[in-house]
C-alpha cells in the first residue's frame, strides 16, 4: 500500500509476534491470557484484532506497549517491534519506545485524559517526556497536531480542558497526543466503542486518513465486524486467548473458515430493511399513548446566576400498540434515556400526558402510582450495576413481589420458573450476581422485569454492554418473551442495527425531539429526514440500499 514512504532499509514488517504466551495468576478463569499466538503487522497497513471480551486482545496490545500489570507475565514467545525484540527489555528502554515508536489510543477518552490539564499541556507533556523540542516548538507542533486531527479552532482548543469537549473531540485529542512523536505504529484499543455512530464513522475515517498520509502501521482492536469491514487490511480473530483465524480482511469476511469466526460474523446485527413479522395482537388498541411530553433539567441556582437549563425531552408524542415493539433510536444526549425514565416515572415530567392503559400516569404521586408500577417494568443497560451485588438472585427476583404482598413460597416458585424461562438453571436462585457473566446477568434483569407479568417493558440499551454473540441471544430471548406473553416493548438503543432486528416501529430522536417515526423499512431504506439519513449512512460495515456488506475496498 504505502510501504515505500518509509525508509527503504526498514523491515517490511512493523510488528511481528511469535508464539506469545502470557500467563495469568493462579485462580483465574484460565491459565493463560493468550496462548501461543503469532501474527504479523505489515508496514503501513491496518491490522484488526477482533474477539469478544475475555479473548485476550487488550492484553496483547498492552504487552506490546509494555503496560502489563505486575501479576501477569510473558512466559514464552517474542515480540519484534520495528526489528527490535521487546520481550525482556528493561522498563527504561520500553519507556523510550512508547510514544516514539509505538503509541496507543484508548477506549474511553475521558478517563485517558487528565481532567486537570489543558489539552495543549497534555500534548506538550507527551513530547516533553521524551525531551523533544523547546517550549515554543512544542507549542507549534501541538497546534499543528490539533489541526491535523480535524479539531476546529486549534488555537482555542489548545487551552481547553477535556471536560469541555465532546466524546469525539476527546478521542481526536487522544489521537493528536499519540501522533505527537510521529510513531511508526499506532495501537488503537476499541477507540470508537464509546462513541456515537456518526462520531465513530468520523473517527474511523480520521484514523484511516492519517494512516494513509503517514504510512503508519495500525493495530486496531475491536469487537465489531462492522468496523473491520470499514478499515481493516488484514484480520486476526481471537477466541479465549488463541488466534483461531487470520488473513486478509476480504478473505476473512467473505469466506470465514473457523466456526467461531463464522459465528461472530453471523451474530453481527445487520440492517434488515424488512419489517418484523407482526405478532398477532389480542387487541389492537394502544397500551401507551404519550402526548407532548416535556422534561427540562435544571441545575445550579437562579440566586447565584448559575442556573443552567437543559431541555432533555421537548414535546414528544407517540403510541405503542399492544404486543408491539417501538424502538427509540438516537445518539447520546438525544434524550432517549430520559424519555425511558419519564415513562416509568423514575423522574417526573414537566409537562404532557402519559396515558397508560387509558389512565394518565404523569400527574400521579408515587403512592398512587405504586400499584400500576408493576405493569410497567424496565430492563437496564449495565448488567453489572443493575443487580445489587450484596443480594442473592433469589432475593433480587422476589423482593418486588414480596413488597407488593405476594407470599414467599409463590414468589420463589415463580422466580425459579422464570429463571428457567430465561435460560438459567434454577440453581442460580441462591447465587450472587458476581458469579454470572454479563449475558447471564442481563437474563436475570429480564427475569426480574417479568416477575410482575408487566404489560409494558422498557429496555434501556439492554444489549449495548454485551458482546455481539450474547447480544443476538438476548434479542432472541426478548423476541420469544414477547411472542409468548404479548408484552409491549419500548426498546431504547443507539444502535440502528439492533433496532432493526427487534422493532416493529422506530422513532428517531435528536436533541429531545422525534425527527422521524415509521417502520424499519422506511427508516432504513427510505429515510425522510436528513438526520436519519446521516445515522443510517454512518453505520459501520453497511452499504446503503440493503446491499450485503462486503469487504472494505482496499
Amino acid at each position, binding site marked *: 500500500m504505502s510501504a515505500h514512504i518509509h525508509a527503504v532499509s526498514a523491515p517490511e514488517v512493523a510488528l511481528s509476534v511469535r508464539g506469545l504466551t502470557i500467563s495469568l495468576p493462579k485462580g483465574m478463569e484460565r491459565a493463560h491470557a493468550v496462548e501461543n499466538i503469532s501474527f504479523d503487522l505489515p508496514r503501513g497497513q491496518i491490522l484488526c484484532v477482533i474477539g469478544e471480551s475475555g479473548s485476550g486482545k487488550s492484553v496483547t496490545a498492552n504487552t506490546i506497549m509494555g503496560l502489563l500489570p505486575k501479576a501477569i507475565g510473558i512466559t514464552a514467545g517474542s515480540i519484534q517491534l520495528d526489528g527490535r525484540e521487546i520481550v525482556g527489555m528493561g522498563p527504561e528502554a520500553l519507556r523510550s519506545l512508547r510514544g516514539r515508536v509505538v503509541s496507543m489510543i484508548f477506549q474511553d477518552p475521558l478517563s485517558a485524559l487528565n481532567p486537570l490539564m489543558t489539552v495543549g499541556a497534555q500534548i506538550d507533556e507527551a513530547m516533553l517526556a521524551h525531551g523533544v523540542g523547546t517550549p515554543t516548538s512544542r507549542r507549534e507542533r501541538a497546534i499543528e497536531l490539533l489541526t491535523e486531527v480535524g479539531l476546529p479552532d486549534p488555537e482555542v482548543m489548545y487551552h481547553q480542558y477535556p471536560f469541555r469537549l465532546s466524546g469525539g473531540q476527546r478521542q481526536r485529542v487522544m489521537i493528536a497526543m499519540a501522533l505527537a512523536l510521529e510513531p511508526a505504529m499506532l495501537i488503537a484499543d476499541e477507540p470508537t466503542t464509546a462513541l456515537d455512530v456518526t462520531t465513530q464513522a468520523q473517527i474511523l475515517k480520521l484514523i484511516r486518513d492519517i494512516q494513509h498520509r503517514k504510512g503508519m502501521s495500525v493495530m486496531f482492536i475491536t469487537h465489531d465486524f462492522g468496523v473491520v469491514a470499514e478499515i481493516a487490511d488484514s484480520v486476526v480473530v481471537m477466541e479465549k486467548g488463541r488466534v483461531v483465524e487470520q488473513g486478509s480482511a476480504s478473505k476473512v469476511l467473505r469466506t470465514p473458515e473457523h466456526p467461531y469466526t463464522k459465528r461472530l460474523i453471523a451474530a453481527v446485527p445487520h440492517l434488515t430493511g424488512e419489517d418484523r413479522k407482526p405478532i398477532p395482537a389480542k387487541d389492537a388498541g394502544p397500551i401507551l399513548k404519550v402526548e407532548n411530553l416535556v422534561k427540562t433539567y435544571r441545575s445550579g441556582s437562579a440566586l447565584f446566576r448559575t442556573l443552567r437549563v437543559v431541555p432533555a425531552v421537548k414535546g414528544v408524542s407517540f403510541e405503542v400498540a399492544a404486543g408491539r415493539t417501538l424502538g427509540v433510536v438516537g445518539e447520546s444526549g438525544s434524550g432517549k434515556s430520559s424519555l425511558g425514565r419519564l415513562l416509568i416515572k423514575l423522574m417526573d415530567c414537566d409537562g404532557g400526558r402519559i396515558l397508560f392503559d387509558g389512565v394518565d400516569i404523569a400527574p400521579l404521586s408515587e403512592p398512587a402510582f405504586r400499584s400500576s408500577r408493576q405493569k410497567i*417494568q*424496565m430492563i437496564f443497560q449495565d448488567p453489572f*450495576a*443493575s443487580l445489587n451485588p*450484596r*443480594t442473592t438472585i433469589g432475593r433480587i427476583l422476589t423482593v418486588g413481589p414480596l413488597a407488593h404482598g405476594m407470599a414467599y413460597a409463590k414468589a420463589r416458585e415463580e422466580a425459579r420458573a422464570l429463571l428457567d424461562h430465561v435460560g*438459567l438453571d434454577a440453581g442460580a436462585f441462591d447465587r450472587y450476581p458476581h458469579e454470572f457473566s454479563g*449475558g447471564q446477568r442481563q437474563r436475570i434483569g429480564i427475569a*426480574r422485569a417479568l416477575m410482575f407479568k408487566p404489560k409494558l417493558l422498557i429496555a434501556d440499551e439492554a444489549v449495548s454492554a454485551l458482546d455481539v454473540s450474547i447480544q443476538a441471544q438476548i434479542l432472541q430471548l426478548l423476541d420469544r418473551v414477547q411472542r409468548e406473553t404479548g408484552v409491549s416493548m419500548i426498546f431504547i438503543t443507539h444502535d440502528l442495527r439492533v433496532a432493526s432486528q427487534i422493532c416493529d416501529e422506530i422513532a428517531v430522536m435528536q436533541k429531545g425531539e422525534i425527527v422521524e417515526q415509521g417502520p424499519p423499512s422506511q427508516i432504513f431504506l427510505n429515510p425522510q429526514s436528513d438526520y436519519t439519513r446521516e445515522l443510517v449512512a454512518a453505520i459501520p460495515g453497511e452499504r446503503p440500499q440493503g446491499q450485503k456488506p462486503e469487504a472494505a475496498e482496499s
Partner: protein
Amino acid sequence: MTTFSAVHTPSRWWQSRVMRRFMEHRLALLGLSMITLLTLACIVGPSLLPYDSLSIDLRARFAPPLSGGHYLGTDPLGRDVAARLLMAGRISLLVGFTAMLLSIVVGTVVGVIAGYQGGWINAVLMRTVDGFLSYPSIFLLLALAAALKPSPVMITVIIAVTSWMEVARIVEAEVRSLKEREFVLAGRMLGLGRAHIMFREILPNAMGPIIVAATLTVARAILLEAYVSFLGFGIQPPLPSWGNMLNGAQQYLGSAPWLAIIPGAAITIAVTSFNFIGDGLRDALDVRHDTI
C-alpha cells in the same frame, strides 16, 4: 434454549478476596490477635487471679511487680494492679465498643438518609453534622461530663455524641454515589419503599467504609474515655478504668512508675491494635486494589 450454569463456583466468605488480603496484612493480624487476647484476658482474667480488684491490703502497699503473688504489683491502697487492670479493661473496652456502636448507628442513619434524600433534608442533616464538628470535641466532652453525673453509661453516651459525625460524613458520601447505580433505580421500578431501598438495598453496599470507620472509632473512644477519666471527669473510683488508674498514678511517678506504665501500655496496645485492624480492613476493602 440452552441452559447456562454460573461461571464461578460459589465461594465462602473466608475464601473471599477481602479476607485473603486482610490475612496478608501482618500488622492487622497482629492487631486482631492482640485485641482478642486482651478481650479474653479482661473477660476471664479477674476470676482466675487470687485477688479482687477492690480488696484493700494496707500491709502490701506499693508492692513492685512480681512480688508476693502480685504479678503487676499493688497500688497505694495495696490493691492488686493486675486485677484492677483487667477490671478496668472490661470497663474501658465496653465503653469503647458501646460508644462505637452508638456512633455508628447514629452516623449511619443520618448519613444514609441525608445521602439518599438529598435536597433540604441533606442540607439540614449535614449542617447539623458540621455544627457538631465545629465544637472542639474534648471541651464539649469535658463540659458535658462536668455538668452530668459521670457514670459509665453517661460517659459512653457523651463519647458517642462527639464521634458520630465522621461516620455520618463517610456514609453520606458513599450513599450519594451508590444511589446513582442502576440497582437502586431497579428497586424503585419494583415499587420498593424508600426505607427498604435505603437500608436493605444501599446500606449493605456501604458496609466496607462503615466497618473501617467502626474500628477507628473504637480506638478513638477508648482514648477519649481514658482522657476524660484521667482528668477526673470520667469513670469515678473505686470503679477502675485505664484512665483513672493513670490519674491515680501521677503522684507516685517517681516512686512507683509501674502504676502509670502498666495502664498506659494497655491503652497503647488497645488503640494501636484497633488502628492496625482499621488499616488492614481499609486496604482489604479498597476496590482500587481489585485489578487482577
